[in-house]
């Protein structure tokens, strides 16, 4: 049997039962690798219940720093009999399978093309511990210990992590360390250690850009919450829903630390758990109308429920910041799985002619930056700004360069007239487009005794904010809203391109391009790097906002065949591009995954290869002016 080999470059997956304490043990494993300076990206694949169902934790180790999923499993650690049959079957040939051998492996599951490593976890723990809870919990730590031996994890690092985690609780630390050692010992004694797949402390093969700065390990929801803190949000109204709940949880945690008025001990923020998403969005609308920076976070079903209010905010021009942490499917779908499938629902949220501003962060760092920016944009543009993240980004830990903050940052509160401002303008009308950019001057309640009061409404009005059913007033108003949307293009984050990969002998004359956004980006870059040596040079552009920047149009026009990589069934981003950039559909080829688990580099590469095989012949290269 040929065993899979690799230093700092493999995929390990843990199969557990949820509610049994595996999450923290698995986290310990991933964090140890991170502390060793080796690029790692862990993913929790968990069921939509609280206890007793199969749950997985996939850890990718990638010296080159690929943080997206690669596809395939090199080593499976399975302590869940419910899922074992499928789990063992999913291991790559030449891979490794560690399981709880207290109960022997059923014959029909056995494979001889992989290395099977039995550790009698239950037995060991039954022997060692008497409290049932400890028997269950420490089983997880034991296999981490075994993995430490098998993969060469620095044992010190593991101990340090336990010390950090249980600071002050000596007893817990020692029992955990003991369990670790038990596993370690067992592996050393029974298996070839380390395995052909293994780790090596930083240096060696690790991509230099990862080593440049001391990275952090954090999830997107926490980063977004910090963005809300730094962006000056004072009102958060929300309704619990997976996978967005931890955005507000983290906001609360940081706010309790950083937003308490020193003198009075009172809070410089308000968090309200609303009765549902309609109310959450209503509170944000009310607070923003009244001049506070306010936000909410939700997921699909909440977005649907918010759509009437999003239409109001669009039409009445009230700033709103909404963080949509996308999950799988229409309706309840798969609430604990990831997708990028709310694009159209968000872009055109609500009835009537509406267009909403969207942001697409791809990393925790961007979740932080873009949340701050979302508040600036919402106030600058006086309209909802929806940050489209997803479960994969929001709830999983990502290696990220540290967050950065420029102390010179000033909030952009947009065109708001204060009392002085009102006194200084000759004529004020809430919807007078004085500057020609479609953005008018707003006023806040309570500002001026005589001037600037107006009635905000979701019904039609004239430039002076007086109720109007005149067709001309209506048209003038919604045309201005379109103009404002044009203006938005110059404010929102621009797409990112990377220098193209040089390909020695290209196998095609076509100019190839790939478009993607959010969590599809990491595996997309990796797929592009996979395809380059195969003779397919692909230029990339990562979309970061809607409305689209004109460089997107140019990118598409500069390429003969453009792949749009996204995680939904209907190719929603592709449709949005077609609609808004007036692009011919045959220019854009969808690369899709919507299974609920994040798209992998292999899937992308595979679909692109297929498309090149079947479609490229039909495409006539565009004539381009040579610059």
């Amino acid at each position: 049997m040929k065993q899979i080999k690799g230093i700092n470059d493999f995929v390990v997956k843990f199969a557990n039962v949820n509610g049994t304490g595996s999450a923290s043990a698995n986290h310990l494993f991933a964090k140890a690798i991170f502390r060793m300076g080796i690029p790692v990206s862990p993913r929790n694949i968990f069921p939509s219940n609280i206890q007793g169902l199969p749950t997985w934790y996939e850890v990718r180790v990638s010296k080159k720093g690929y943080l997206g999923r690669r596809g395939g499993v090199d080593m499976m650690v399975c302590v869940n009999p419910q899922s074992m049959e499928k789990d063992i079957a999913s291991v790559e040939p030449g891979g490794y399978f560690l399981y709880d051998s207290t109960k022997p492996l059923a014959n029909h599951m056995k494979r001889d093309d992989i290395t099977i490593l039995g550790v009698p976890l239950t037995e060991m723990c039954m022997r060692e511990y008497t409290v049932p809870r400890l028997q269950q919990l420490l089983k997880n730590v034991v296999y981490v210990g075994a993995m430490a031996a098998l993969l060469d994890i620095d044992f010190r690092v593991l101990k340090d992590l336990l010390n950090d985690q249980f600071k002050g609780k000596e007893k817990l630390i020692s029992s955990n360390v003991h369990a670790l050692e038990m596993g370690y010992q067992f592996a050393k004694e029974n298996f070839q250690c380390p395995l052909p797949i293994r780790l090596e402390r930083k240096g060696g093969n690790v991509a230099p850009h990862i080593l440049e700065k001391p990275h952090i390990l954090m999830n997107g929801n926490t980063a977004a919450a910090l963005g809300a803190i730094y962006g000056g949000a004072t009102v958060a109204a929300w309704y619990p829903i997976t996978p967005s709940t931890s955005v507000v949880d983290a906001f609360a945690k940081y706010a309790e630390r950083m937003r308490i008025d020193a003198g009075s001990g009172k809070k410089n923020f308000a968090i309200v758990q609303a009765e549902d998403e309609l109310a959450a969005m209503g509170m944000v609308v009310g607070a923003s109308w009244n001049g506070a920076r306010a936000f909410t976070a939700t997921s699909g079903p909440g977005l649907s429920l918010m759509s009437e209010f999003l239409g109001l905010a669009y039409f009445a021009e009230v700033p709103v910041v909404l963080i949509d942490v996308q999950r799988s499917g229409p309706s309840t779908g798969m609430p604990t799985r990831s997708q990028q499938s709310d694009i159209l629902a968000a872009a055109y949220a609500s009835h009537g002619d509406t267009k909403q501003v969207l942001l697409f962060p791809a990393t925790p760092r961007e979740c932080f930056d873009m949340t701050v920016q979302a508040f600036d944009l919402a106030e600058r543009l006086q309209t909802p700004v929806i940050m489209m993240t997803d479960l994969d980004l929001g709830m999983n830990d990502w290696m990220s360069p540290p967050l950065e903050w420029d102390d010179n940052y000033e909030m952009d509160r947009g065109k708001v007239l204060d009392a002085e401002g009102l006194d200084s303008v000759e004529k004020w009308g809430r919807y007078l487009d004085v500057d020609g950019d479609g953005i008018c001057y707003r006023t806040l309640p309570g500002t001026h005794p005589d001037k600037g009061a107006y009635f905000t409404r979701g019904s039609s009005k004239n430039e002076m904010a007086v109720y109007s059913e005149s067709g001309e007033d209506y048209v003038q108003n919604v045309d201005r809203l379109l103009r404002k949307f044009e203006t938005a293009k110059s404010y929102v984050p621009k797409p990112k391109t990377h220098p193209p990969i040089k390909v020695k002998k290209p196998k095609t004359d076509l100019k190839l391009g790939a478009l993607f956004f959010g969590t599809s980006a990491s595996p997309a870059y990796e797929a592009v790097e996979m395809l380059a040596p195969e003779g397919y040079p692909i230029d990339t552009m990562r979309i970061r906002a809607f409305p689209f920047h004109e460089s997107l149009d140019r990118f598409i026009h500069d390429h003969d065949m453009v792949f749009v990589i996204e995680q939904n069934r209907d190719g929603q981003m592709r449709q949005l591009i077609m609609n808004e950039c007036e692009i011919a559909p045959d220019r854009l080829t969808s690369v899709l995954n919507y299974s609920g688990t994040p798209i992998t580099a292999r899937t992308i590469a595979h679909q692109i290869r297929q498309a090149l095989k079947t479609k490229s012949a039909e495409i006539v290269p565009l004539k381009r002016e040579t610059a």
Partner: protein
Amino acid sequence: MSYIKPKFRHPRLPANRLGFTVADYDGAISTLCAGCGHDSISAAIRNACFESSIPPHRIAKVSGIGCSSKMPTYFLGKSHGFNSVHGRMPSVATGASLANRDLTYIGVSGDGDTASIGMGQFIHLIRRNVNMTYIVANNGCYGLTKGQDSATADLGSVAKGGAVNPFEGIDLASLAILQGASFVARSFSGDKGQLEPLIRAAMAHKGFAFIDVVSPCVTFNNHVGSTKSYTETREHLDAMPLDFVPMRDEITTQYAEGTTQNVTLHDGSVIHLHKADSSYRTDDRRAAMDSVQQADEDGRILTGLLFLDPDSQDLNQSLNLATRPLNELGKDELCPGSKVLKSINEGLR
């Protein structure tokens, strides 16, 4: 279309403590039907704000959708207003109040807006005890969509087309008392003498103040058979009058022993309640509820201040909110800066 009323400021119009005349509290000319109860409520709000000398621009008006929810256009033209979406004003009001705790919030809604589509938000608004005055112009029907029964329409009330309502009407006042509202009143748009002091007291109250105002719809629900017509309402009215003495004023009037009860609000204002039935207790939730239910069973429409807890904890307190309005806080108070972020980064390694 709505016309801004020309302001003929009569030099001899009496001014309030701030020097404003009642005209300073006017809004645009009403586009409601002539005789609509809602216009009387608008006038009562205008007068109450004038009498209580609240600077117009320090008031914010919020409403949902409906004839009633249009009202804020027709009073307080110097105040900002927000005509939001149908039934969801409570959430907008909550958000607004959190953003700036220093303004006076007046919410205006209809029975359709509150008791049907808005029911969930209404109950949760009460539960949070948001510091605002919430007025329902209750006509038992959907005026703006042409007269359908609302959820407050009484069992057996006959619609204009002749249909008899087969459902028990929801009594918003009882509901508010049960759900823990800190100020609950009921009134009648035709009873200015009672409505104005109630509104003044409601605005002075710290916490959620609810006033359910029977306000006949002359176009769709003012016929014989309707239980919310002017005639029916007048005939069954059982009004408990009251006076409102603002904090600053001295209490001068003397009342006969036993007929009057004084309630002091949080800000020092005093409400004098003149009760026909001196057994009525505004300070005991269970007793108040029972009396209201009793009157209901007897077919009387009990109006006046039904329940008051002057010392309840409002949302600003529950949340331990800073005394400075949140919308006034700037970068210095809000943004922890780069050093803190560095230490956060450290914690994530």
